[in-house]
C-alpha cells in the first residue's frame, strides 16, 4: 500500500482537520463527534439538510456543505457508516427551528445509524434514502439498490429548494423525486485499498473490469475483459435507459463521475461517448456534470448517472451553490 498516511488511527482526524483549514471560509470541522458544518449559522426558518456516510468518497459529503447544498455532513470511518451521536450533534448544531432532513444512502449500516440518530434528536426531522444504482436488482424483500452518485444531485437540488424556503415536507418530496428519476451504473478497472486493510479490496486482472461496481469496491453485475470506451459506455447507458425509460423529448442531466483514480481527460472522453450514444438514440442532454464527486478512494473507474429533469429540477440545479467541491452562480 502506498498512501499519504502517518498512522491508521489518526488518518481520518488528520484529513478532516486539513479539510477544515483548506476551506475555512466555507465550513467548520468539529471533531469528537465529527461533523462538518457551514461557517455561517443556518438562517432562521430554513430547513437544514444533513447527510453523511463512510469516508473515502470525498468530496462527498463534506465537500457539499455550504450555501445552496448541505448544512452539515457526518463522516464515518473509511467505508463505515457514521454513528448516531454524530447525527444528533450535527442536527442540534445546525437546526434553526425549521427541521432537519437527513439524506441517507441505502446501506444497512447507514440506515440503522441515521435512524438511531434521528430517534435521539428531539427536534422535527425526516429522512430520504437514495438508491440510484441500477446495477443491483431492486426488491422489497432485500436491502435493495445501493445509493451512489445521484446522491450528489439530490443534495444539490434539494439544497436549493431549502435555500428558497421550501418546507421539510417539500424538500423530502423533491428529494424523492430526484432519486426516483435518476439511474447510475459504474465500472472499475482497479480496486481501492482501505487504509486499515492495507491491501486492495479485490483482485482484478490487468485486462479486466468490474461492470456494475459499487462505491466500496463491492462486486457488480459481472467481471469482463476490458473494452473500448464506446462499448463500455454503451453498455452502461443501456442498463440505465432500460431502467429509467426516459421520453424522447425529456430533458436530461448527464453526470459522469470519477471513482478517484481516473483522470479528467478520460472522464470527458466518457462524457463525449455518452452524449453521442444518447443523441444517436434520440435522447436530449440538457445539463452536465463531469468530475470526481462520489469517489471510492483511489479506484480507477467511473460511473454514469442520468437524471430525468422537469422545470422544478432544472431551476434548482442551476441556482447558486458555494461549497468546497461545487460552486457556481455566486
Amino acid at each position, binding site marked *: 500500500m502506498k498512501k499519504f498516511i502517518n498512522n491508521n488511527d489518526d488518518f481520518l482526524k488528520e484529513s478532516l482537520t486539513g479539510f477544515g483549514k483548506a476551506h475555512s471560509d466555507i465550513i467548520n470541522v468539529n471533531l469528537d463527534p465529527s461533523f462538518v458544518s457551514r461557517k455561517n449559522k443556518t438562517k432562521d426558518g430554513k430547513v437544514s439538510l444533513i447527510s453523511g456516510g463512510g469516508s473515502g468518497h470525498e468530496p462527498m459529503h463534506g465537500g457539499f456543505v455550504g450555501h445552496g447544498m448541505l448544512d452539515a455532513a457526518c463522516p464515518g470511518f473509511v467505508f463505515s457508516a457514521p454513528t448516531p451521536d454524530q447525527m444528533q450533534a450535527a442536527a442540534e448544531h445546525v437546526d434553526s427551528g425549521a427541521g432537519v432532513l437527513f439524506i441517507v444512502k441505502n446501506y*444497512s449500516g447507514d440506515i440503522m445509524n441515521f435512524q438511531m440518530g434521528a430517534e435521539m434528536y428531539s427536534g422535527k426531522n425526516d429522512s430520504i434514502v437514495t438508491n440510484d444504482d441500477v446495477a443491483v436488482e431492486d426488491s422489497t424483500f432485500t436491502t435493495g439498490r445501493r445509493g451512489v452518485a445521484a446522491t450528489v444531485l439530490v443534495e444539490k437540488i434539494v439544497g436549493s429548494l431549502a435555500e428558497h424556503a421550501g418546507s421539510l415536507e417539500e424538500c423530502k418530496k423533491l428529494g424523492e423525486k430526484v432519486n426516483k428519476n435518476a439511474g447510475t451504473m459504474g465500472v472499475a478497472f482497479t480496486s481501492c485499498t482501505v487504509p*486499515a486493510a492495507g491491501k486492495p479490496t479485490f483482485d482484478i486482472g490487468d485486462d479486466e473490469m468490474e461492470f456494475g461496481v459499487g462505491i466500496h469496491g463491492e462486486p457488480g453485475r459481472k467481471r469482463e475483459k476490458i473494452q473500448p470506451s464506446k462499448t463500455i459506455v454503451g453498455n452502461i447507458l443501456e442498463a440505465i435507459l432500460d431502467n429509467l425509460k426516459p421520453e424522447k423529448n425529456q430533458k436530461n442531466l448527464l453526470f459522469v463521475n470519477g471513482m478517484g483514480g481516473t483522470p479528467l481527460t478520460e472522464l470527458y472522453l466518457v462524457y463525449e461517448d455518452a452524449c453521442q450514444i444518447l443523441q444517436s438514440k434520440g435522447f436530449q442532454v440538457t445539463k452536465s456534470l463531469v468530475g470526481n464527486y462520489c469517489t471510492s478512494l483511489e479506484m480507477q473507474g467511473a460511473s454514469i448517472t442520468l437524471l430525468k429533469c422537469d422545470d422544478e429540477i432544472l431551476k434548482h440545479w442551476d441556482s447558486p451553490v458555494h461549497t468546497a467541491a461545487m460552486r457556481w452562480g455566486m
Partner: protein
Amino acid sequence: MSVSFLISQAKSVQKVIDENSAEIEVLDQKIGDGDHIFNIQRGLKLVVELEDSIKNLPLAKALNMIAMKVLSGIGGSSGALFGTFFMTMAKSPDLDKDVDFNKACEMIISGIRAMKERGKADVGEKTMMDVLIPVSEKLNELKNESEFKSGLNEVIKIAEERMLSTRDMLATKGRASFLGERAKGHIDPGARSSQLIIDTICKSVINN
C-alpha cells in the same frame, strides 16, 4: 452476570477475534467491503479500555456506558446492532439484584430481539442474525434449567452449524445482498464473528 464478568468476557473475546481476524477480513472482502473486522476489533478495544471507568459501577450503568461506547465508537452496521444489544440489556429490570443464569438469558434474548428489529433481518438472510436468533431460541429453552452447562454445549453447536449454513445462502440484507448469486459459497463475516463470540463466552461459562 456482573461487571467483572463482562470485562473478562470482553478480554477473552478480543483475543479470539484477533486470532481469527485474517479469516474474517477475507470473508468480508469476498462479499462485503472489508470493514467488519476492523469495526469489531475497534469496538472490543474500546470496551476493554473501559475497565477502569466501569469496574466499580452498578451493572445497569456499566452496560449503558458500554452501549454508548459501542454506539459512538464503531460505526457501520455492527456499531448500531451491538450498541442496540447493550442498550437493551442495560434497560432490563432489577439489575440491582443478583443476575443469575435465567436472568442473564432473558437479558441476552431481549438484546437479540432488539437487534433483529433494528436490522430488520431474520434467519436465512446471510447475516449475523442467522447465528444470533437460533442461539437466542436455544437460550429460551435452557434458561430455567439448573443443569445448563450441557445445554451451553448445544448452543455452541447451534452457533457453529448456523454460521456454516450461511455459506450457501443468498444474501437479502446487508452489503452482500447487492451481490445476488455471487454471495453464495462464502460464509457471512458477521455470522462468523458472532459465532466466535458465542463460542468463547459459552466455553468460559462451562469451564467456570
